């Protein structure tokens, strides 16, 4: 750690020496630089580059970032290589159909023909047109599910829905939070009071129970089988989830607006909009990025929880939550872990990775951090 700090210090001092030394010693330094301009020789680190440098220095952040990229490739590029994906959905595997004995449906019957006693049982045999609950094989790396769908492909397609929802919800939450938090912080007085009381109220609403009720309500109102139910629920999640961002932005702006650069902005006669969005908000962006990254994990978790409870997207849709929903059936939980463990691992990895990256970014943005 010590070494690294020294490294940076050396770099800086070298830059400074080369800059100053050359200009003083050689008034005609263009010759000395062989036609290059000074800026080609010196390396200036912009604040963003410093952050990037610090971010990539932490192993955990890099692991997180790589995991996120892999998950995205898995979800968005993966289905292109899967033979079982079609038109954004999955096709059933109809090769190698296994006979499935559904069970004994009548008690044993005894009867005599010509003095010989026979014993008979009626068995119903279903011949499904697809490989139902197939095991792990070369064709299906994670087996197939109840409908003969390839689990791995469903996992990839599920990732598309889950990750997209995560990003969209977090971005909408952040936009609402920035606007309302910015207004509250900048204008103060009754605007601040009004907005912050709304924030207080919304942050007291218990999220999960309310989402459960909403799911029931949407189902009762006839939206149960359509994906729009999930969208409506996510809109609601946006509507109550912006409070954290608003608090953060307001707190930052309260302290920022008292600083000299705001006085300068005021003196140069800038409009209110440009003062807020050009001078105040950019100063909050580091914290916003961190809170968005950490928020992604929780939105993905919320979708997965709803899916697990069977209340999110309609049951046929592949989302990570819906896939892990299979674990709530005792048979699948006990005998077919290949159906649901993959989804659980993906959800955990996604949350973990977003947390790693979020933490890494926070440390990288923090000028007080030693590392």
């Amino acid at each position, binding site marked *: 750690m010590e070494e690294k700090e020294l490294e940076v210090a050396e770099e800086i001092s070298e830059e400074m020496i080369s800059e100053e030394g050359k200009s003083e010693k050689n008034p005609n330094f263009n010759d000395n630089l062989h036609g290059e301009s000074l800026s080609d020789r010196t390396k200036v680190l912009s604040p963003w580059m410093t952050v990037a440098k610090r971010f990539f220095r932490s192993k955990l952040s890099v692991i997180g970032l790589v995991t996120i990229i892999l998950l995205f490739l898995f979800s968005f590029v993966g289905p292109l290589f899967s033979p079982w994906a079609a038109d954004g959905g999955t096709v059933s595997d109809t090769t190698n159909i296994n006979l499935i004995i559904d069970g004994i449906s009548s008690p044993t019957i005894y009867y005599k023909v010509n003095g010989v006693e026979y014993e008979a049982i009626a068995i119903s045999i279903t011949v499904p047109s697809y490989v139902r609950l197939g095991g792990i094989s070369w064709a299906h790396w994670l087996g197939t599910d109840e409908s003969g769908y390839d689990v791995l492909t469903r996992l990839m397609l599920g990732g598309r829905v889950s990750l997209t929802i995560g990003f969209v919800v977090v971005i909408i939450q952040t936009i609402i939070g920035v606007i309302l938090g910015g207004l509250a912080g900048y204008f103060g007085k009754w605007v601040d009071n009004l907005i912050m009381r709304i924030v*207080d109220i919304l942050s007291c609403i218990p999220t999960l129970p309310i989402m459960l009720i909403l799911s029931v309500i949407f189902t*009762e109102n006839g939206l149960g089988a359509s994906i729009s139910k999930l969208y409506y629920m996510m809109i609601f999640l946006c509507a109550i989830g912006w409070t954290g961002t608003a608090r953060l932005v307001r707190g930052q702006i309260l302290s920022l607006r008292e600083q000299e650069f705001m006085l300068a902005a005021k003196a140069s006669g800038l409009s209110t909009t440009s003062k807020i969005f050009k001078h105040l908000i950019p100063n909050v962006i580091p914290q916003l990025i961190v809170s968005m990254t950490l928020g992604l994990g929780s939105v993905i978790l919320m979708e*997965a929880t709803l899916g697990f409870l069977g209340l999110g997207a309609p049951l046929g849709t592949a989302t990570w939550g819906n896939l892990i929903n299979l674990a709530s059936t005792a048979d699948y939980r006990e005998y077919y872990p290949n159906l649901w463990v993959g989804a659980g691992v993906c959800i955990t990895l996604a949350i973990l990775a977003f947390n790693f990256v979020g933490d890494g970014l926070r440390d990288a943005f923090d000028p007080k951090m030693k590392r």
Partner: protein
Amino acid sequence: MVKYIIKRLLLAILILFGVSLIIYFLLRLMPTNVIADNYRISHSNGGASEEEIERGLQALLAAYGLEDNSFFGIIRGYFLWLGRFLQGDMGESFKYGASVQDVIGQYMWLSFGISFAALILEMIIAIPLGIKCAVNQYGKLDYIATILCMVGIAFPSFFLGNLFIKWFAVDLGWFETGGLSSGISPDAGIAYVIDILWHLVLPMSVMIILSIGGLMRYTRTNTLEVLNADYIRTARAKGLSEGKVIYKHVFRNTMIPLVTQLSFTLPSLFGGAMITEQIFALPGIGNQAYQGLLAGDIFLAMGYNMFLAVLTVIGVLFADLMYAVVDPRVKLGG
């Protein structure tokens, strides 16, 4: 101080008013026939005649203003509900055929017992570990503990719960799951208690693993902050032994923000862990409320959500007050 508390209490009332209004409006989006169906189902077992049920239903709909789904009808219904709520009547739970306050009161204590025991265990493990990690910052233990904590935080409860059931209950057969007891009669005394504890091992492990990470990291961050404080340098300069510095000066100051943090666990302490209880089929308030919510039990939903909201408000208020009580340097105001 008194003025501050009064101000906060008034604010709390405003918040609860807002929360209840929003939840009530959401609940009223539910079609009235769902409420009626639920009422009929819950009352048809009691041997009452069709006519009696119908009359009871109409009386209920009228008493709570549920029959009118226009905007003003909902407002009227809200105030009817509010009036009863303030008198301590939270309505009737169709699902359980009892008043909502009785349902909450009956199932709350199991959830509280489990959560409280889990919380104590968490604190016993997480706080010393957090301090140890902070003292040896960037040491081996620190890295391992931090990574394990992050993994624990990232695990969804339903995934970990199902994995545990699969591994420890099904494959290895070490623990029992599904409910509280495997049918031993309560007269069996110690065997009955052990059976219940045996059923609680897995759910409690899940709860502890999920939330221990947050507590440990919080302790670690706070300890790091305290370690950088001037009074710690002074303590060292005085020539105190490292043990004394850590356990007398650092530890005590670390506890201040922890007390605040613990106040925020109030809703989950009494409100139950909905998912964990549901997976392990424990009859705690979380699971019961979950079943009720799914059944469209409007008064139970309203009552349970208000219960959680009240707990949240109390928790936040308590956190602020405790902050001043524990740390005499903090002055409340504003």
